[in-house]
């Protein structure tokens, strides 16, 4: 009789261990330096009005057309940085590491390291809730994650307003993002689905693949220092009257892309749009600008 409470406690401890232990087959290792392959999505920011592949709604299109890239000369905007999902768009690799709870050994968070103009992307794995709707929005947003089999799934809120493409298509501060990390050997494919009820007609789907490399990537970016570039703070805000954007035909002239597609009309993202395109019309002869990318830098 004196030993029964001990046995009962033992069973309870076993139950507790089972309930709180992570499934041994659920996770894979994402940590490491993942180099950019830079085989795709390099052309999206070379022409001012290139919204191809971005399913903008009418409000988003007008915002995009009113954008003038001279805003980067504003002292207040020089260090604004890029939204967190830019790591599936930009030319750099990513470094991923995990932070571990020192007693239990469980993962508290994964971090996708920063670049020079992109904040670190921290994925909290400890079940903490997202902040209040009144909380500050940050460049990196607030992200929680969980495993679905061998796929890390992350959900991001509290991002700042910014751009889904650097040339102007906007995202609002109501944007949310779901990111999935798929690892296949030394290839990491990241899927980002961005939802913005303000400016997107439907969720935007982006993917980027990276390759594991032995060269260590920097997890931080260089500092940003603003400087006078011809415009004093508060002096003016460069912008276009949307109907008067002078670059609206450049994609058509340069690459034969129909205007609807250049403006990110949602129907242009689907194969049936080709029925509306004139076959071979205005196909340019020879590439004259941004034709061949340089190999990626050695340490990216």
């Amino acid at each position, binding site marked *: 009789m004196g030993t029964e409470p001990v046995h009962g406690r033992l069973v309870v401890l076993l139950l507790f261990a089972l309930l709180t232990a992570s499934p041994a087959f659920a996770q894979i290792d994402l940590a490491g330096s993942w180099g950019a392959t830079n085989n795709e999505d390099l052309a999206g920011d070379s022409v001012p009005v290139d919204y191809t592949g971005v399913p903008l709604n009418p409000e988003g299109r007008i915002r995009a057309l009113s954008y003038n890239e001279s805003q980067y000369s504003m002292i207040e905007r020089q260090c604004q940085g890029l939204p967190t999902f830019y790591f599936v768009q930009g030319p750099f690799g990513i470094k991923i590491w995990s932070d571990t709870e020192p007693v239990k050994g469980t993962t508290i968070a994964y971090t996708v390291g920063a670049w020079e103009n992109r904040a670190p992307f921290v994925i909290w794995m400890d079940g903490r809730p997202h902040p209040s709707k009144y909380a500050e929005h940050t460049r990196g947003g607030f992200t929680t994650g969980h495993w679905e089999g061998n796929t890390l799934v992350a959900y991001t809120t509290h991002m700042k307003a910014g751009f889904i493409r650097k040339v102007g298509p906007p995202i609002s501060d109501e944007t949310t993002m779901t990111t999935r990390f798929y690892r296949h050997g030394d290839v990491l494919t990241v899927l980002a689905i961005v939802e913005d009820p303000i400016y997107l007609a439907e969720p935007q789907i982006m993917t980027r693949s990276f390759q594991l490399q032995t060269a260590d990537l920097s997890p931080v970016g260089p500092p940003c220092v603003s400087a006078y570039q011809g415009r004093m703070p508060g002096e003016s805000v460069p912008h276009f009257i949307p109907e008067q954007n002078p670059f609206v035909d450049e994609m058509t002239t340069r690459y034969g892309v129909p205007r609807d597609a250049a403006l990110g009309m949602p129907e242009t993202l689907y194969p*049936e749009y080709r029925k509306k395109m004139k076959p071979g019309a205005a196909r340019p002869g020879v590439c004259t600008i941004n034709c061949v990318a340089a190999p990626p830098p050695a340490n990216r």
Partner: protein
Amino acid sequence: MMRRKTRLAACIVLAWCVAPAAADAQGRGGAAAPPAAAKASAPVDLTGYWVAFISEEWRYRMVTPPKGDYRGIPLTPEGTRVANTWDPAAAEPEPCKAYGAPAIMRIPGRVHIVWQDDNTLRLDTDAGTQTRAFRFSSAAAPAGPATWQGSSTARWESAGRGTGAGSLTVVTTNVRAGYLRRNGVPYSENATVTEYFDVAPHPAGGQVLIVTTVVDDPRYLQRPYIVSSHFKKEGDGSKWEPSPCTAAW
């Protein structure tokens, strides 16, 4: 009586811990069970109609880019030389050159995936009316002339029993030389294509199919060419519209 109940509870707990290992042991040292057919052991369901969502590289996929626009493709000098021989003004004698296995998943169109048999997954494209057969077999692919879609072997990557998660890996060889990009960027008959098929839920309902394509071609590529394409699942085939290969765009 209380001691028996405690022992019983401990046994139940221990049995729960041991059962998966015991089941695995059957495949190692115990009596060998026949391998499950690929269809029966599929960790994910890839069947159905999927439409390409051209949110990336629009001007390389929906239209033919200008000659010399090889941005992002790590061509060897030989590959660049061959690409530079392309004549945009000339009629394309073989319109299906841009529809080969290394590039077919980048073509704007729909794909239809079905089980051809218990160990072969079949993928049809409406654009170019191409058919790909993914054989789940450890045996070497049958020899034969090179074709646009080559010979593909497949395997599942499962995340583990009960997770309902996994992906498809397909390796394709024996392809006819063709175009990685419509403006004459080549791949050779020595190209090997490794593809990973993953699925994810779409926030508006349905699913997204992500296909990561890795093209190795020592003749024309300095290093692997890796791209990822995405598709949205459709409820049915009502928009399925087969069309022949074309160089029109």
